[in-house]
């Protein structure tokens, strides 16, 4: 061991795992994060900034309609479908693949649900819709992993294929109404105020438990203060949000009060929690990141890369199906446009804006939620601004699809530029 005692073994001054043993204090934790940011590891910071900026702008321009409780709840419901489809797409993005047809998988699954509900009871209809979603995902996965077609091409073909199925199911120009109260209440419904408190307190307790456990297992790498601040911030946010949503948000003349958490909020929280456990705490999740990072290394480590790819697409299909149910529930019907148009790009965009890399191997499920918020804020705020007369320009309708598409497209381009630039910066190091 003597030779190790020499201070300059190979030009490095730090001793064995110096940072592992060392307790990190609050200041160091912050400065570490800052240097990570400088090195290009932005995480979900851009999305959080974007949310802050958008809320500020829309709030300043249009406080009377944008900053209302009704719009807040409405916004959460609007974001729900895209968020879940973005989670679906994230599974393929983590592998460095893409699913351009996830929106139509959602649409087909929703159409199966709606049409079956006209004749069948709830449970078999839901099971069939979920099975169809998994089958569509597995089909895509088979084409990508076993046949070996690039996912871009397979899913581009699927866009037409699935859209065709969707049209056959709901018939041209038609729409299928949903009257089942449970499916209708999935997104539109609210929990009673008491249940809302219960749900958010359970959620908070769970979050606190996970954070404390993480802090204890970190050997001091996460300072107590940071964990405490995170839990404290979550507590304040949950209490504020629950109080706000438990207040009656109906218009003055409405016959019944609207109050309580939208049902979709705890559902998304549960999905988020389960997927997080799957990705960060199981072998399967670890292997997913490994294949996304370096498929060859994963193969040599004995991971069955092809079946992993296939299963990721199957999960993507299932989640897209759930997203489809959300889309349908929000409008209580399914038509040929469910999951069509901009849904898919919004979903991919949401994941990428949240900080999930298009190049594979990097990202979290929370990114889909944050990015989904950004992309739901844009049309929500623009619609409420509506027609305005600008000096030197004349009248302009901010609520028009044209302006919304341009803004969402620009947001997606900015997010992918951040992804690409931070990636190249990471490689220079």
């Amino acid at each position, binding site marked *: 061991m003597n030779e190790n005692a020499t201070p300059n073994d190979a030009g490095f001054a730090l001793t064995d795992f110096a940072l*592992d043993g060392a307790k990190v204090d609050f200041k160091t934790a912050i400065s570490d994060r800052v240097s990570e940011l400088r090195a290009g590891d932005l995480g979900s910071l851009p999305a959080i900034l974007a949310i802050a900026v958008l809320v500020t702008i829309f709030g300043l321009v249009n406080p009377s309609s944008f900053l209302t409780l009704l719009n807040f709840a409405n916004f959460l419901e609007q974001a729900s479908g895209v968020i879940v489809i973005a989670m679906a797409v994230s599974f393929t993005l983590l592998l460095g693949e893409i699913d351009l047809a996830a929106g139509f998988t959602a649409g087909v699954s929703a159409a199966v649900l709606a049409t079956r509900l006209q004749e069948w009871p709830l449970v078999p209809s839901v099971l069939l819709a979920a099975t169809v979603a998994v089958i569509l995902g597995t089909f895509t996965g088979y084409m990508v992993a076993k046949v070996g077609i690039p996912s871009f091409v397979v899913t581009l073909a699927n866009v037409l294929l699935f859209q065709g199925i969707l049209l056959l199911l709901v018939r041209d120009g038609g729409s299928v109404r949903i009257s089942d109260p449970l499916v209708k209440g999935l997104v539109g419904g609210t929990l009673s105020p008491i249940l809302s408190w219960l749900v958010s307190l359970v959620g908070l307790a769970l979050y606190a438990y996970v954070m404390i456990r993480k802090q204890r297992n970190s050997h001091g790498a996460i300072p107590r203060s940071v964990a405490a601040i995170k839990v404290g911030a979550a507590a304040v946010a949950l209490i504020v949000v629950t109080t706000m949503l438990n207040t009656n948000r109906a218009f003055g003349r409405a016959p019944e009060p609207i109050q309580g958490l939208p049902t979709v909020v705890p559902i998304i929280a549960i999905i988020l929690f389960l997927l997080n456990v799957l990705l960060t705490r199981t*072998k399967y999740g670890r292997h997913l990141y490994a294949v996304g990072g370096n498929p060859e290394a994963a193969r040599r*480590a004995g991971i069955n890369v092809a079946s992993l790819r296939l299963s990721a697409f199957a999960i993507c299909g299932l989640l897209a199906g759930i997203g489809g149910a959300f889309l349908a529930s929000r409008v209580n019907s399914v038509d040929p446009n469910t999951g069509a148009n901009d849904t898919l790009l919004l979903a991919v965009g949401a994941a990428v804006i949240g900080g999930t890399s298009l190049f594979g191997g990097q990202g979290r499920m929370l990114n889909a939620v944050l990015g989904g918020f950004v992309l739901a804020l844009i049309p929500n705020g623009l619609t409420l601004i509506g027609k305005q007369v600008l000096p030197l320009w004349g009248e302009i309708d901010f609520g028009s699809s044209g302006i919304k598409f341009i803004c969402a497209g620009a947001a997606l381009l900015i997010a992918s530029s951040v992804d690409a630039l931070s990636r190249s910066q990471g490689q220079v190091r």
Partner: protein
Amino acid sequence: MSQTPLLEVSKVNKRFGPVHVLHDVDLKMYPGTVTALIGDNGAGKSTLVKSIAGIHPIDSGTITFDGEAVTIDNPKDASALGIEVVYQDLALCENLDIVQNLFLGRELTERGLLDEKTMEQRTRETLASLSVRTIKSVRQRVSSLSGGQRQTVAIAKAVLWDSKVVILDEPTAALGVAQTEQVNKLVRRLAEKGIAVGLISHNMNDVIAVSDRVAVMYLGRMAADIEVTETTSNEQLVELITSGRSGDVGIQEEVNQ
């Protein structure tokens, strides 16, 4: 040096179609010994290593491991025996940290969930047993490591699983002076742990500094298998590589390719 080889390859032949790549090749690797495998490009070094690793199963000849005749038909056979090859491209996932890379494909779990604590602990123990002292945290991502540190991680991966034979494919080819020195020391430490170490290298200074024995391949044949002594010189090894003989060492008859 112990007298019985841990891994002995004898009279091994390998053909790829009409091309006869390995001619009756013999190689012995002893525990606690670094055996360098040198030779010009196309001499058959990589094919020989891939035969041992089970990637290209041999056509004829015998492989003896720990005194017993074995057949190695695929990479799984090789790792079951405790033979690990660290290839030049290292095969690390840059988006994962050191612990995640070391345990990739063989993660420890507890009630279905990953047992991060034990894996972290064992990573520290393994790196410490190799006297690796340049890695700040086992939770560092591989993308933030230098070339030498990555090589270290790849080698530690082989050590973690109690490999008995570790073959390194040009571990210092892409490294600077200080890092080469660091990896060379690591190679010696592997041998001190009783591992039979194979070292493919094109750097004769490294070979002389680190190895106990040198096996020289020339046009698919084993030209010489000699001990490294004080008289072993750079020039002698280069001569063996380029002409297959040096003085009375090496292939004496004419080789017809």
